[in-house]
């Protein structure tokens, strides 16, 4: 078994599984904590609210095994709410503890400013160019045409600048949308829904040498 898609009842696993099939990757979809010990790489999707998603992990006994896999050096990719759960805590519908693999808080996107012609309506829905931080990559370089698809109202506000790989401007503020700490990578956008550019990004995760 190579790639594990973590199923904790909170994700659109269908599209992610199809994307991995498209990339000819051997994968398994499972919510069994023991599978995390066998996985060479872990993809950790998720939709919905932070607290509810965290509850999904706890109900299945996945919290400690996920942390253990991260500390063992297994490459982990969190997508959307899966990315958010990597942080210390979330603020959606009250305060909730996260996996605390990357220090920071999942906070709401800044509201629309009525006088701003480039105002972003929230939820932020659509395709965006990313500002990749100098010296950072998102599992390799993004091409000029590599927009990514977003649909979110919250974002992973990593505490340490060094953990922020990329941002997008939202209503005048640069918002982190890709975070990384060693072998743990999180992306707020949906690579499995971002056309060929997103598929290339997933492929790079499958091949990346980011074990520590």
């Amino acid at each position, binding site marked *: 078994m190579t790639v594990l898609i973590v199923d904790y009842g909170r994700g659109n696993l269908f599209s992610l599984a199809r994307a991995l099939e498209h990339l000819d990757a051997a994968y398994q979809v499972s919510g069994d904590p023991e599978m995390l010990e066998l996985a060479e790489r872990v993809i950790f999707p998720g939709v*919905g609210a932070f607290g509810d998603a965290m509850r999904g992990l706890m109900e299945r006994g996945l919290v400690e095994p996920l942390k253990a896999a991260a500390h063992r050096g297994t490459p982990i990719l969190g997508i959307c709410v899966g990315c958010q759960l990597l942080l210390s805590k979330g603020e959606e519908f009250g305060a909730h503890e996260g996996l605390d693999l990357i220090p920071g808080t999942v906070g709401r996107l800044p509201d629309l400013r009525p006088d701003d012609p480039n105002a972003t309506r929230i*939820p932020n829905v659509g395709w965006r160019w990313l500002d990749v931080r100098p010296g950072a990559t998102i599992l390799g370089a993004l091409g000029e045409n590599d927009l990514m698809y977003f*649909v*979110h109202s919250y974002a992973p506000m990593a505490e340490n600048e060094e953990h922020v790989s990329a941002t997008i401007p939202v209503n005048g503020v640069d918002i982190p949308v890709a975070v990384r700490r060693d072998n743990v990578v999180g992306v707020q956008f*949906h690579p499995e829904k971002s*056309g060929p550019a997103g598929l290339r990004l997933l492929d790079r995760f499958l091949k990346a040498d980011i074990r520590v």
Partner: protein
Amino acid sequence: MTSSLTPPPPRIIARLDIKGPNVIKGIHLEGLRVVGQPGPMARAYYEQGVDEIIYMDTVASLYGRNNILPVVEEAARDIFVPLTVGGGIRSVDDIVAALRSGADKVAINTAAIARPDFIREAAEAFGSQCIVLSVEAKRRGEGRWEALADNGRERTCVDVLEWVHQAEKLGVGEILVTSVDAEGTRRGFDHTLFQAVRGRVSIPVIGCGGAGEAQHVIDAVRDDGLDAIACASIFHYGHMPLPELKAALAREGITVRPDSLAA
């Protein structure tokens, strides 16, 4: 040069109205005619660089059944852009089934009008970003529109502008507004409708119904400030293929998502 300083591109969405195994198209949501098969059409639009696809089951509300999901699942197999599914979504279980078939978002109309609390329940269960309110707007005088149900077949006496405001408060993440009067005519959008709806909510608005040429889309993006445009006839009949539409937008200085298949 493009960067995050460039405004994000408005989404150009292909809307496929489904009846049984076919994609159909009508005028004013009536007089339906078969224009193709959902799988190959969605695949072609994906390859042309479409930003999103909406599947709308035109008969599910009428007969109280869900037959669109196998069609969605088939299409979702090798299409890696967002898919929205609507028509006949009337319970949390229906939403679960749609998401399992590969949908990213669901569009709800009739069931939400019948019971507005359904929106709140759906948004709490799946997040606002998953729930699109579909509004079929029929003009009833100056600055007034009635929301129709059952794919434009039923009157409701619900005022569109009141309804979108209420739905935002209940937790929908986007509004898909279709002008029944302009739909299928290719004579242009109902811009007063788009502007009125956009002014009434602070969430993204997708406009639909009436696109016949690139200028219509340019106006809706630039003047009405819409976040997304859904087109059907101009794509289905080949009047304005997607790459030509995007090129026309780009010539007007409107950002578009480049086709990354070639990249």
